[in-house]
Structure formats: structure tokens, C-alpha cells
């Protein structure tokens, strides 16, 4: 909303500079977003919050200036002029439903001379960014900006049978609006119609057919109150915007309707001559004025202030409220018609605080009583993120809304079960994602395109699925790796392509650090491995199939990824720490190097060794892995480290020698290894 400094002065004396005024308005809730010099004048652009339709006029802002500065508000009340009955057919007005239109008034002004507006009027409108049309239209706009009441002038002679019907449109009725567009109407839209068809969309825009042109002789000046909700819905449905609709949907001051129409008439008589030739109205323009009891003690308690009663009264008076003192601290405040937003005592507290100045309220610190500390999902997620970035992974954040194409490319069926967005702005927002990894593959492919050698990314976010009439939201961890893992050794840089084993290493570290016990990796398909905890699947690892890589334009690269359901994992997470005694006695370590058929899984071998070695064998683990020279084709070379230790004494060579021999025999006999 724009307003000029000089126009404001019509209603209130201002002795402070435009800059100072802008600052004061901003700090009382009318944020001045720009202050522009225009000739000798200044234009203030103010952001008006949706609860304050009364500020959508020069008068409304002047009222606020008066409250801030203490200058008296100058209002002008117009008198009803003498009606000279012309030889016109009598005007018939009907309102089909007074819920739709609580008040409708029409003035007939005959023999007007429609012409271009005088310069001063053009200039005022143009300073607010409003185009000049002709004196009649300009006057209605002028009154809208000055007083906040939208008005509309019809060419009376274009009305069929001198009749105004405020009614809902019929299905399939059409209107050509003044901007030349044809709009299809319907029963949810309130129109002004003549005897035959709609001539205006109520409160939003007039029709082309009845618009005031330079040929117009007699006019009908409409001033009415339309249902804000109807105006809002019609405006949304028809995709129309206007200064009029903007005010009606927020609510106009019913009690000011008549004065606005008189003001416009007076100006018309002055600038376009003409004769007042009729006035008809229907409905009520009076509104109730609720009385709110404000307890000044409550006000000060809520604000943390000690504003004296007299000061509170002064502020409320300046805002134009009538009040009575009921007792020492209680004020009975009568709400003016233009302040329909005020309903509760707390609304008055804000009014007082605004004008008193938020800046005058000294900050205090409350006693915060902390809630119970519970380990929540966020702590776990924080832990996960810390572990992963420590392992060299970069966190990404991708959109929860995706297009079906992305899911299809990732091999996800999109025919059913997806949660669709009713009102997406583009295809990229059509569904809520049911999985994380498609977005991760896309982010990974994007970075490969940017010539990244290695991409190792993760995300923790929610995915969505439909379950009966509800939407289930699961928190997931996704990891995607691609490229070379490179690290320095004393022999120089070592590079190797990232494989599922690298991913497994990350997951093992993560699960161990989260205190998860008994997890396992089970191959489900050739390129898919399930992550299992206590017989339940909590996630999977995937070596992307060539067709998926192709769909994402990833060439000559291997991509591995994992997705873990954190909801399912959460029950197994144990971040509690417990101390275990440090072993008092030294361990004896014996390594066994051997070649084994590569089809024999290591896991079974380790379990067999551990079973055999108990209780002296504290741990058996693979410490080296080799395939190549010296190892026959079809075999892998492994080094198994056996760590012997007990808690109550130092083991001797003699004690473990026979056991270790047994383990070697077991490996040879049961697993057919060739010791090296």
C-alpha cells in the first residue's frame, strides 16, 4: 500500500520529517518498505498486515499517525444533498441474500461530463501507481485510496430496465470484465446483474458493457459491503486481482460506506458537474461495537512492564477508542467499527504495546524449567551424522518431493502406492518420495558430471508411504558411494575402486558405534545384500545394476549404495556406555596364512574357528586378504589372526600349541585350505 506524505497531511498535522515518520510507522507495525521522493512530495510504501484492512487507506494511516504523534485527526463528514428527481425511470434494487451483501447503496448522478481528470487528481493517483482513466473512474479510485471503501460507477443508460440485482451467477453465465477478459461464472460467484445478465463481479471488477466512457451521461455510483469470503473465493476461482477485492476480502468498514459514497458524489459534482438524481439503499451498515474490559494489571503482567493506567488510557484514546474506567485498573473499551479485528483483551494489550513502543520494554530472562532429558531420534541422527562425516562422507539434503521419472529410473514401481501432491507447481513436485536412494543417485550423478573423482554422500530424511487412510513417515539413512578410494602410504598413493566391502565397512563401523548388537549381512540377490538385525531386515546394500547406471548416464563407474530404516533400527541402538575391565594378562597371537576356495564364505569359517578355539581363543579375525600371484585361480589368500587370551592367567606356549594345531587341522580338513 502506497501513501504520500502530503496526502496524509490532509487528515493530520505532521511536524516530523518523512524519514522520521517512516521510522515511527515501521516501529508501530506499519513497515515502511520504501520511502521515495517524488517532486516535492514523498511516497511511502507500507506493508500492511492482513489483520488491518483499516490501514488500507490514507485516512487509516493518518489515524495511526495521529496515535503515534498525538496530533488530532481531521475527519470530514459529508451531508446528504438534496435529490433532484429527474425524469428517469425509477431504479429497482434487489439483494437476493443479505448474507452475501449486507449493505448495498446506489446513487444516480445525471448529466455528468465525463472528461480527463485534472492534473492534481491524476498526480495523486499516479503517485500511488494507479493509472488515470477518466474523471468519474478516477474519483471512485481516489475515494478507495483515501477512505478505503471500494466504489464502482456504472453507465446507467446501459443497464437493462434500470434494475440492479445482487445475486449469485447462474451456471454458464459469462461476463466480459473491464480488462477485456471473458470470465465464466457460476453459482459460487456473487454478481451485480441488471434485469438480464451480470454487469459486474461483486467487489472485484466491473463489466466492459456498463463501464463509464467519455460518452456516458448518467451514472450509477455503487457503494456496498460484500461478504469477504465470497469475494476471496471468487477472486481465487477467477484468477482476478483488484484493489477493490483486496479490501473487500479483508473486510471494509461498513459504517464508512455511506460517507465514502457522499465524498465521491461531491467530487463528481465538482469535477464532472451533474445532478444528484436518486439514492437507494438496502440492508444495514451499522455494526456492533463490542466492549472489551482491559485489566491494566494483566497488561503489565503479560508485557513485563509497569505502564501507568493514565498512559494506557492516553494511548487508547489516541487510537480513537472510547473508554470508561470501571475500576482502578479496569478499562471498558468500546471497539470502533473500523477495528473488527479486536476481540480479546490481549488484542488491546498489543495496541498499547505497539504505541508505547516495543523498544521501551526492557528485556528480561525467564527461569526456564528444562524438560525431562530423553534420548530422542535427533540425538541418534546427530550421532550417525558425526560418525559418517568422520568416515569421510559428505552430507547432502535432497527434495522430499520428486517426479515419477526419477523413481522409474531407479527401478521403483510408480503405478500404485505413491502419495501424490494435489497441487504441484511442476512435475518435479508430483509425489512424496517412497525411498531415499533415487535422490542420492541423482545427486551422485550430478557430481560425477562436475568431474568429481570420488563421491561419497549420505542423507538422513523422511520417506513416505500410504498405510490405510494415513501416511506413514519413516526416517531413513541413505548412503551412496562411487569412484576411487585414495589414500597415501609410504609407498605412495594407493587407489582402489569403492566396492560393497567399503560400504560394508562404513555400516559396520556405524552400527558398532551405535551399540547395535547381532547385525548381519545376507546376500539376497546377486547385487543386493540385506542388513539384518535379529532376523529382521532393517536395510540393504545395493551394487547398482548396469541398466540403472545407464538410466542416470553414469559411465564406466560402479555405484554402491545403502538404505537403512532408522525407525526399525532404533530399537537396537544402545548409546549407553559400560566399562569392561582391561585384560590383565597378555595375549598370544598366532597368524595362519592360507589359500581357500573363493566360493567358501569366510563367515562360516570364522564361526567354526571360534567354536573350536573357545574358551582360550578370545578372537579370530581376518587380517589380510590377497588374490593374485602365488594364489591359484579360484582361490583367495587369507591371513587369519588367532588371539588367545584368558582373564585369570598368562597363557603359555605349551597351552595353546595343541589348540592352534587343532585349528589348523580344522581349516585343512573341513574347509580344504592350503596352508602357506
Amino acid at each position, binding site marked *: 500500500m502506497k501513501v504520500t506524505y502530503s496526502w496524509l497531511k490532509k487528515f493530520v498535522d505532521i511536524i516530523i520529517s518523512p524519514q522520521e515518520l517512516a521510522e515511527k510507522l515501521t516501529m508501530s*507495525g506499519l513497515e515502511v518498505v520504501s520511502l521515495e521522493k517524488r517532486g516535492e512530495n514523498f511516497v511511502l510504501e507500507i506493508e500492511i498486515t*492482513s489483520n488491518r484492512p483499516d490501514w488500507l487507506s490514507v485516512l487509516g494511516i493518518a489515524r495511526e499517525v495521529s496515535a503515534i504523534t498525538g496530533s488530532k485527526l481531521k475527519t470530514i463528514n459529508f451531508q446528504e444533498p438534496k435529490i433532484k428527481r429527474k425524469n428517469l425511470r425509477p431504479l429497482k434494487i434487489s439483494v437476493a441474500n443479505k448474507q452475501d451483501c449486507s449493505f448495498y447503496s446506489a446513487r444516480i448522478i445525471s448529466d455528468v461530463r465525463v472528461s480527463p481528470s485534472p492534473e492534481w487528481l491524476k498526480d495523486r493517483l499516479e503517485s500511488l501507481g494507479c493509472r488515470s482513466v477518466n474523471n468519474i473512474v478516477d474519483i471512485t479510485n481516489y475515494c478507495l485510496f483515501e477512505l478505503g471503501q471500494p466504489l464502482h460507477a456504472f453507465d446507467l443508460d446501459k443497464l437493462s430496465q434500470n434494475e440492479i440485482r445482487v445475486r449469485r451467477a447462474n451456471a454458464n453465465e459469462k461476463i466480459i470484465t473491464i480488462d477485456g477478459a471473458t470470465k465464466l461464472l457460476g453459482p459460487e460467484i456473487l454478481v451485480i446483474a441488471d434485469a438480464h445478465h451480470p454487469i459486474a463481479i461483486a467487489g472485484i471488477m466491473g463489466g466492459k458493457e456498463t463501464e463509464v466512457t467519455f460518452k456516458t451521461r448518467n451514472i450509477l455510483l455503487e457503494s456496498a459491503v460484500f461478504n469477504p469470503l465470497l469475494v*476471496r473465493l471468487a477472486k481465487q476461482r477467477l484468477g482476478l486481482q483488484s484493489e477493490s477485492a483486496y479490501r473487500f476480502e*479483508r473486510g471494509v468498514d461498513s459504517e464508512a460506506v455511506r460517507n465514502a459514497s457522499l465524498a465521491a458524489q461531491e467530487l463528481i459534482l465538482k469535477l464532472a458537474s451533474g445532478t444528484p438524481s436518486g439514492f437507494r439503499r438496502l440492508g444495514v451498515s451499522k455494526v456492533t461495537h463490542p466492549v472489551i474490559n482491559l485489566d491494566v494489571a494483566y497488561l503489565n503482567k*503479560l508485557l513485563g512492564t509497569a505502564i501507568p493506567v493514565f498512559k494506557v488510557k492516553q494511548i487508547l484514546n489516541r487510537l480513537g477508542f472510547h473508554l470508561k474506567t470501571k475500576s482502578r485498573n479496569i478499562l471498558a473499551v468500546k471497539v470502533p467499527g473500523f477495528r473488527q479485528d479486536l476481540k480479546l483483551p490481549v488484542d488491546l494489550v498489543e495496541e498499547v504495546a505497539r504505541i508505547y513502543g516495543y523498544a521501551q*520494554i526492557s528485556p528480561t530472562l525467564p527461569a526456564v524449567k528444562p524438560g525431562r532429558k530423553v534420548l530422542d531420534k535427533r540425538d541418534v541422527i546427530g550421532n550417525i551424522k558425526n560418525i559418517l562425516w568422520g568416515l569421510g562422507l559428505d552430507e547432502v539434503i535432497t527434495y522430499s*518431493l520428486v517426479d515419477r521419472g526419477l523413481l522409474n529410473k531407479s527401478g521403483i514401481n510408480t503405478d500404485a502406492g505413491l502419495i501424490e501432491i494435489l497441487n504441484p507447481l511442476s512435475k518435479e513436485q508430483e509425489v512424496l518420495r517412497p525411498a531415499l536412494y533415487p535422490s542420492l543417485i541423482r545427486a551422485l550423478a550430478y557430481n560425477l558430471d562436475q568431474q568429481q573423482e570420488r563421491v*561419497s554422500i549420505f542423507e538422513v530424511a523422511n520417506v513416505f508411504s500410504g498405510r490405510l487412510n494415513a501416511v506413514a513417515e519413516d526416517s531413513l539413512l541413505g548412503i551412496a558411494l562411487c569412484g576411487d578410494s585414495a589414500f597415501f602410504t609410504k609407498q605412495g598413493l594407493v587407489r582402489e575402486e569403492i566396492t560393497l566391502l567399503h560400504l560394508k565397512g562404513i555400516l559396520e563401523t556405524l552400527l558398532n558405534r551405535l551399540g547395535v548388537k547381532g547385525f548381519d549381512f545376507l546376500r539376497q540377490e546377486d547385487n543386493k545384500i540385506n542388513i539384518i538385525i535379529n532376523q529382521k531386515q532393517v536395510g540393504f546394500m545395493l551394487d547398482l545394476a548396469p541398466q540403472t547406471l545407464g538410466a542416470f548416464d553414469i559411465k564406466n563407474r560402479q555405484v554402491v549404495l545403502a538404505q537403512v530404516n532408522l525407525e526399525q533400527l532404533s530399537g537396537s541402538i544402545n548409546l549407553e556406555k559400560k566399562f569392561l575391565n582391561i585384560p590383565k594378562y597378555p595375549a598370544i597371537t598366532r597368524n595362519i596364512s592360507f589359500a581357500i576356495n573363493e566360493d567358501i564364505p569366510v563367515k562360516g569359517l570364522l564361526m567354526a574357528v571360534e567354536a573350536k578355539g573357545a574358551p582360550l581363543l578370545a578372537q579370530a579375525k581376518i587380517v589380510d586378504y590377497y588374490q593374485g600371484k602365488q594364489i591359484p585361480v579360484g582361490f583367495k589368500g587369507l591371513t587369519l589372526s588367532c588371539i588367545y587370551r584368558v582373564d585369570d592367567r598368562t597363557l603359555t606356549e605349551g597351552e595353546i600349541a595343541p589348540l592352534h594345531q587343532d585349528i589348523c587341522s580344522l581349516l585343512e580338513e573341513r574347509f580344504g585350505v592350503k596352508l602357506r
Partner: protein
Amino acid sequence: MDINSIQTQIEGDLAGVVSVQALEEARIKYLGRKGMIAELTSSIPGLAAEQRGIFGQQVNALKNKLLGLFEEKEKTLKTQSSVLKKSNLDVGMPGIVQELGHIHPITQIIDEICTVFNRMGFSVVQGPEVETEYNNFTGLNIPLEHPSRDAFDTFYLKDYSKLLLRSHTSPVQVRVMKTQKPPLAMVVPGRVYRPDAVDASHLFMFHQIEGFLVDENIRFSDLKGILELFAKNVFGRDISMRFRPHFFPFTEPSVEVDISCIICKGRGCSVCGRKGWLEILGAGMIHPNVFKQVGYAPGIYTGFAFGMGVERITMLKYGINDIRLFFENDLRFLRQF
């Protein structure tokens, strides 16, 4: 000479070795192809048959023992190189390390802000991203059809009437208050969604942090105190702040909070639109209608709530000029943080 005295002799010899070179000489002397051990081994065939076995084992044990001793001595010599040998380390060479990854800047700012509030006694809670129309609007005193809703354009779900993607984090207020009684001190970070056309400062998905403090006797002055402490912790001690009256349906009185522009220090620049101020959050005293909606008896509790956009704060803090960078996930961007 028996094996034991040979061992004693060698140990004595080794003790006197002080350089890698001397150690190598000793190795050749004892373990070399023509060294003492080789000599002893070659003497075995000449021994009486009954002695061969025992002597062979003794020589073998000695050899193993010596291998261990030499290895250990070598290590000792090498680790004492500071005294003995000039280092050829070129510190210009890249260090050998496992590289760290990076946490997304949005997560970092969320953590930073939540930590500030944690220290003041607030706990962190979360809520679902798919919300009910009630929690997102009605429960927060936002009428379903009113211009005040224009600020909360919302994605709705097909086939699930009354469900939507939350357009702000405030519905968590309703969720928490419906199930818990004050005192409440919470912050709520999370994703929110609005069907906004995408440009350098708008996206259809972004992050907010909501916070609220509800108890008996929480005052507007407390809101100022807590938010001042927060802003100074995040943006620095020397910023100035201003609290402007504003309107939100779920708070009364409502306020928008500005900090002096951190780029131009309040003089006016392109980042702050020449105003010298940057809006960082909206706040206010929780509206009595919200307390009514969640079933709190009237007049007992007061409280304040606030909400801020994480992307905006992150952009201001790091000087990022395009919001889309956050979700493009270019590693050249992410690895800067």
C-alpha cells in the same frame, strides 16, 4: 664353543652397534651366507649322529633368536634417528590422513541454533512433515479461508483429505501442547513446504526452527530477553536489534525481529536493501485461542513462540547468494562448510 657362549658374545657385540651400517656388518658376520650361523650349520654333517639332532635344534633356535634381536636392534636404531641420522622428510609433501567429510551447512546452522537454545534449557523435538489441516491451521488460530492464510500457501495430498505438507513448523506447538502440560521449553527444527515459484530466494522446500516457552508468568519482556541472547550468540555480541510489531494469527502481541545488517553494520547495502536491518525471525506471545484449542484452561499459562527460516540465516551468515545451492548438492559447495 658352546651355543650359549656364542649367543652371549653376539649379544655383547650388538650392544656396541650404534649405526645401521654397523648393524648390517654384524648381520653379515653372523647371519650372512658365510657367517657364523652358516658355518655352524655346515658343521652339522661332520658331527656324530647322536649329536646332530640336538645341535641342529640348538643352531636353529639361535638363528631364530638372532633374527629377532637384529630386527629389534634395527627398529631401535631407526627410531633414534634424531641423534643418529639426518631426516630426509620433505614437509611440503601431502600429509597422510583419512579425509573428513562434511556436514551440510543447513544441518550445521540448525545444530548451532539448537545448541544455543539447549544451553538455555530448551529441548529439541520434532514433528511429522505430513500434517493435518487442523494442526497446520485451525489449531493455530488461522482461519481456513482468510487473507491471513495467503502467507501459508500449502501443498495438499491427493487421496488424503485434510492432510497436507506442513507449511511451517508451528503445528508441532499444537502437537506438544495437546499431549503435555507446561512448563514447556522446546525448539523444533525441520523441513517445511510451500508451493512457491523457484528463484534465487524461494524454494518449495526449506527448513524452519520453531521455538516456544510456556509456563505461568512468561512475559513479552522474556521473549525479548531470550531472543536477544539467541541472536547475539549466533550473529555476534556487537549487533543491534529491533522488535517491530507485526501480525501472526497464532501470536498476540506479535513481533518481527531485525538485526543490524551484518554485512554493512547498519549503514545500508544491497543485502539489507539499503535499510540497514535484516529480518531474522517472527515471534510473539502465544494467542489465547491457541491455548484454548489445545485444551489449556484459560488464564493460567502464558508463553511465547518464535520461528525462523534456516536457509535465510545460513545465507546471511555465510554470504550465500542463491538458495538453490543448498539442494543442488554440488560437492564444491558442500565441501566449503
